[in-house]
Structures are given as C-alpha cells and as structure tokens.
C-alpha cells in the first residue's frame, strides 16, 4: 500500500465530506518530523459511514481529528459540504463546529468529571445559544431518552457514577444534540466489553438513521468496522492502502496488507485452526523514516524491486473498489474475467 492518488475519489458534487491530499506532520525534535498522515484522500456521501481501519500508528485517528481541524492538518484540503474547513480560521471555523461532532475512545475521559450529565449534554447548545433554557432542556431530555439514558435518574449525576457503556451513550447524546451532519467516531467501542460494544454499535446505527448522520468510524477492529460501514478504507503508516465496499473488501481483499489484517483476526470458532494461517511478521517501521516506495514493502511477501522505487497509486479493482499496490492480490483483470 502506502499509496497516493485520487482514482478512488467520486463526483465532488455528491460528497458531504471531501478530504484531499491530507498531510499531518508533527515535530519530533532535532528538526525532524513525523508524518502521521501523508497524502490521504477520500470522500463521503451524505448518510454514508466510512470505516477507517489499520494498526495503531497508521494515522487513522489523526486523520479523524484532522478532519475536525483538531489540530489543523499541515497540508491538504478538507471540505464539508460547500465549506472548505482548511481555508477557515478563528471564528469562521468555530462557526462550523455544530455541523460536525466527535465521539472519543475513552468514555470516561471524554466527559468532564465535575459536571452533571444534563449540563454536559446541554453545553453545545449553550455555546451556540440555541433556543431558550426550556427548549434546550427539552432537547437534552429528548437526546438522552433516545440514547437510552433515563433522564429523571441520570440528569443530575456526574459521569463517574456511570459505567463505560452509559458514558459512551452520554457522549453520543452530546454529539447529536446540535443536529450535526458529520460525526467522527474515534474508536468509540474499543474500551468496552463485547456485550456493551454491541449495544453501542446498534445505538450508533439507530442514531444514524434517526438524525440522518454521516459517520467516519475509526477503529482497529475489522469486524466492528465491517458491521457499521458502507465503505472501508485501510490505512498503513499514514497512507491509504485500499478502499472499497466492506463485503467485497473483506471477501476478496486486494492489498496484501488488508489480507494480512483479516488473517490475524481471531475467529470465535475452534474448527478454524489458527496455526494454518501465516501471520504477518515484523513491526511497524518508524514513521520518522518510512520505507521508500510502498511503505508496506518491508513486511510484504510479494514485494519486489519496483515496490522500493515507486510509490503505488490508487487503481480500480472493481466498481468502487480501489487499491494502491504494485502486486495486488486481486487485479482488475481477474475481476473482469469473473
């Protein structure tokens, strides 16, 4: 992977969110910098969920936050509807905030421990002075009810009195209270137990339908991502490897990295022998000094000389399925032959 290019981008007019050539660099001292995200492009239609997957350090969370301009990306363009977020500053950028919200990984840390639940959920409305006190209260009650929090029992309590799952419900309530267009979910279920994880995933799907949301869903768990996504993008070391509809991407992955990720998932079925699978070896290379050409080549058993020399560009595999690889597992030719 480790590719750039824009072959996978769709008609700009249909897109709610358009991210072009996003670059996010952080200084790491001694004049060196690490590029956490490097030249990533994708787009999202209204009502769509894009799943961003990859190992930790692949830049998926940074990408999510860069869309929110928290912090602002080093280079590249982020466009929400007709608004180019990357061109805005100060209060003009602030004014776009109610249109996009974020849900975080750690449900406890994302709620202010000193504030009551109703106060936390009402805060976005107060910041934007939306409605009078009574309307705000009614809206808060509505969203809390919708996420399954008993308003009478919970409104005046502090976050630490709730379980992780409940805190995540409160976070979701806070995110939808301003009726945003876009919500960035940054590993929203990875801190939760499977049973609670399922509740929250179902809830997110319900909220998406109810409030007409568009989601960017960042997670490391491929099964979770598949469950919620309409389109999945796989990232490796700051680059996009493969993007496509989940069913196709999971059943016939074209990028060797996607395939390795899928093979590594433990299957809750003892009949699927784990030893037969060849697990991806090695460690993630340092993002300060990433491999030349394709960034995945150091761990890829299909790598050849060309992978070290040229960076692969996004190329179509099938309708709406694109891969950035010199030696894809599934090629457009094979698809055509089917």
């Amino acid at each position: 992977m480790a590719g750039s290019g824009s072959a996978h981008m769709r008609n700009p007019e249909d897109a709610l969110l358009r991210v072009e050539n996003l670059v996010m660099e952080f200084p790491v001292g001694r004049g060196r910098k690490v590029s956490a995200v490097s030249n990533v492009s994708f787009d999202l239609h209204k009502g769509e969920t894009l799943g961003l997957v990859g190992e930790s350090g692949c830049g998926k969370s940074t990408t999510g936050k860069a869309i929110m301009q928290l912090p602002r990306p080093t280079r590249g363009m982020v466009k929400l509807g007709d608004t180019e977020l990357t061109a805005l500053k100060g209060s003009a950028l602030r004014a776009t905030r109610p249109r996009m919200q974020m849900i975080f990984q750690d449900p406890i840390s994302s709620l202010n421990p000193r504030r009551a639940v109703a106060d936390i959920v009402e805060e976005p409305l107060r910041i934007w002075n939306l409605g009078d006190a009574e309307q705000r209260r009614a809206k808060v009650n509505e969203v809390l009810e919708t996420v399954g929090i008993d308003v009478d029992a919970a409104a005046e309590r502090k976050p630490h009195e709730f379980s992780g799952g409940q805190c995540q419900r409160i976070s979701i309530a806070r995110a939808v209270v301003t009726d945003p267009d876009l919500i960035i979910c940054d590993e929203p279920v990875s801190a939760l137990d499977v049973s609670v994880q399922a509740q929250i995933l179902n809830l997110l799907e319900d909220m998406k339908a109810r409030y007409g949301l568009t989601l960017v869903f960042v997670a490391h768990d491929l099964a979770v991502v598949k469950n919620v996504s309409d389109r999945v993008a796989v990232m490796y070391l700051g680059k996009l490897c493969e993007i496509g509809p989940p069913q196709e991407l999971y059943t016939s992955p074209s990028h060797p990295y996607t395939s390795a990720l899928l093979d590594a998932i433990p299957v809750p079925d003892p009949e699927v022998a784990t030893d037969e699978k060849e697990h991806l070896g090695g460690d993630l290379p340092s993002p300060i000094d990433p491999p030349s050409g394709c960034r995945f080549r150091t761990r890829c058993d299909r790598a050849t000389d060309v992978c070290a020399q040229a960076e692969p560009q996004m190329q179509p595999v099938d309708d709406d399925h694109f891969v950035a690889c010199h030696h894809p597992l599934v090629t457009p030719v094979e698809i055509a032959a089917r």
Partner: protein
Amino acid sequence: MSLADTAASPVPVPGTGPILEVTDLSTSFASPRGRVGAVNGVSLSLERGRTLGIVGESGSGKSVLSRSIMGLLPASTAERTGSIVFEGKELSDWGDKEYRELWGTEMAMIFQDPMTALNPVMKIGKQITESLRFHLDMDRSTAKDTAVELLRSVRIPEPEKRFSSYPHEMSGGMRQRVVIAVALACGPKLLFADEPTTALDVTVQAQVLDLLEEQQRERFMAMILVTHDLGVVAGRAQEIVVMYAGRIVEKAPTRTLFADMKMPYTEALLSAIPKLADPPHTRLAAIGGRPPDLVNPPEGCPFAPRCPYVRERCLTELPALTPVDGDDTHLFACHYPVDSPETIEIKDRLTAQGLLISSPPPGSASDGAQDGR
C-alpha cells in the same frame, strides 16, 4: 463433580494428573458497602501442557480468580477460602512469604499492559537477569547469556542490542514479548496470561498468541489464558471456563463448548461479537443490562435479569453447575439450557416477534460469508 476422580493421586508425577487443582475457591473483598463476592465457589483443574481459557465480561471475576490462585491478593481487604493444590502442595493458607518461592519459578503471570508491567527506568536486560540471579543463583555472565537467549526465543530481533534498551524504546508488541520473556525466565510450570493481547493490535495479537502457544508447547507448561474475547481462546485453549458474576456458568472442552453450548450467557457472549462473515449493518445481538451487584447478588441465577429466556424459577433458585447427560467434561449452570424445549419455544416466539436476533451457529456462519456480494 468430574474433578473428583482426577484428584485421587496426591503427589502427581509430572505429566500425569493435574498440576493445578482448585476446589470451591471463593474470594471476597471488604468494601464500605459490604463484602464484594468477586469469586464464588470455583472449581477447576489443569494439566501440564494444556491451556485453560477463562472467559467473561468485566466484573465477571476472571482476573480475580487468577490472582487468587497466584496469591496476588491484598492481604488487608481480600479473603480467600477453598482449596488450591499446586503440584500436590495445598496453597490455601500460604502467605506472601511462602508464595515467593513459587512466583517466577513455578508460576508466572503476564499482564495486560506491557508498559506498566515493566519498570520504565530499568534496562530490559536487567529486568530479566534480576530474577534469574535471584531465583536461579546465576552469575552475571550466565544470566546475561540466558537473558539474550530468552529474548531470542521470544523472537526479539537483535537481542544483544535490545538487552540494553529501555521499555519506552520498544513498540507495544515488543514490550509484551519482553514481558513474556521475563515471565518465562525461570521456567515456570504454570503461566497465567491475563488479557495478554488486549492492548495490542490484531496483527501483533496474533504474533504474541502464536509465541505463547509455541513457548507453552516447548516448555510443556500449563497455561491459563484469561480474556473477554471468545475469539482469542477458541483456537488456543483446550478447555474453556465461562464466568459470570464470580461463578463458573459453563465449562467444557473448547470444541464441545462451541458445538453444543448450553448456557444462554455463553450464547449471548458469542452472538454479541460482530462476525466478519456477516454483511454490513447486521443488527448485533447485544446483551441488555449489566452484570449484577456483587455486594448484594440477586437471588436465583445471576444472569436472569439479562437473560432473554428467563422464567420464574430462574429468579428464585440458583442453578448448580451440573454435567451434561453422558458427558461429565461439559458442565453448565442453567435451569433451562439453550437446547431445552422450554427455551427453544421462547426463542422461536421472540424471534417471530423480532425481539431476538438469533445468530447462526459458528459453522454455518462462515458459509454465509461468500454470498453477500
């Protein structure tokens, strides 16, 4: 109980009979609200060379159980009753002083977070050699050679160089390998792995689990793998114990458990996991509600308040852990197991009403993978 017959020989010859035999173990903690019964009447046994998976949600008591066996409970608040026989020695009244002889050399533990398990200001080589020199009385150079060999055996590249690295200079996966090397240093016979891969990426998780399995085979260790993820134990453990509210609710050889699970909780735990084979936007069978309060546990079955198939009897009568007819390796604690006529009837009714998402058994799920596109 099926365990009774295996406990017959008091001093087991290595390789025969269980290395660990736990009978009716209970652990509780003092809290301002009363005693918290974290583990309640757990019995299990384990032979060398085998892996036991302990599965449950947060608060199921799975971690407390392994810490109870290993004697890692705080003396001030914890109370442990029941019997723990390890290699013929009864450990139930042992304190830190006696346990110190076992830790490292006989039993070792791998923790979830490799960062906190290692001392951040000590070079990793030293962290390994220290226990080698303490427990095995090695001299400095032998200890160093052994440590480098250990690092090599857990597949750490350039072990000589890594010997003098600090933990923060390594990735999470590498650190967990170091933790494993530290745990294996003195050749323990029983290894506890408490959520050893929860903090790691899937690719690294697979590497680490492969490594554990390989080391276990080579050293003929017994291993207890504690996890919340049925997927992790499915391919790695020979036997699985499912815990809920401090009790064992189902226990069976892995294949039996997956092929013929009896306890609705086990079924629910498996159904709640999103399956790779399912098409996108498949509604998940979440388990509503939360685990019970262990200070005032409910009367009856602890899972009853969350169980879709709950009946009157479940609310009043605690089901005992009983063997399946004709198979005393498979135990479960449920009045109306998932294949009982009563439960099947409710299941059909709820499914018809759209209240229940029935998940196909694992075998048929993988067949469905291909036809989604």
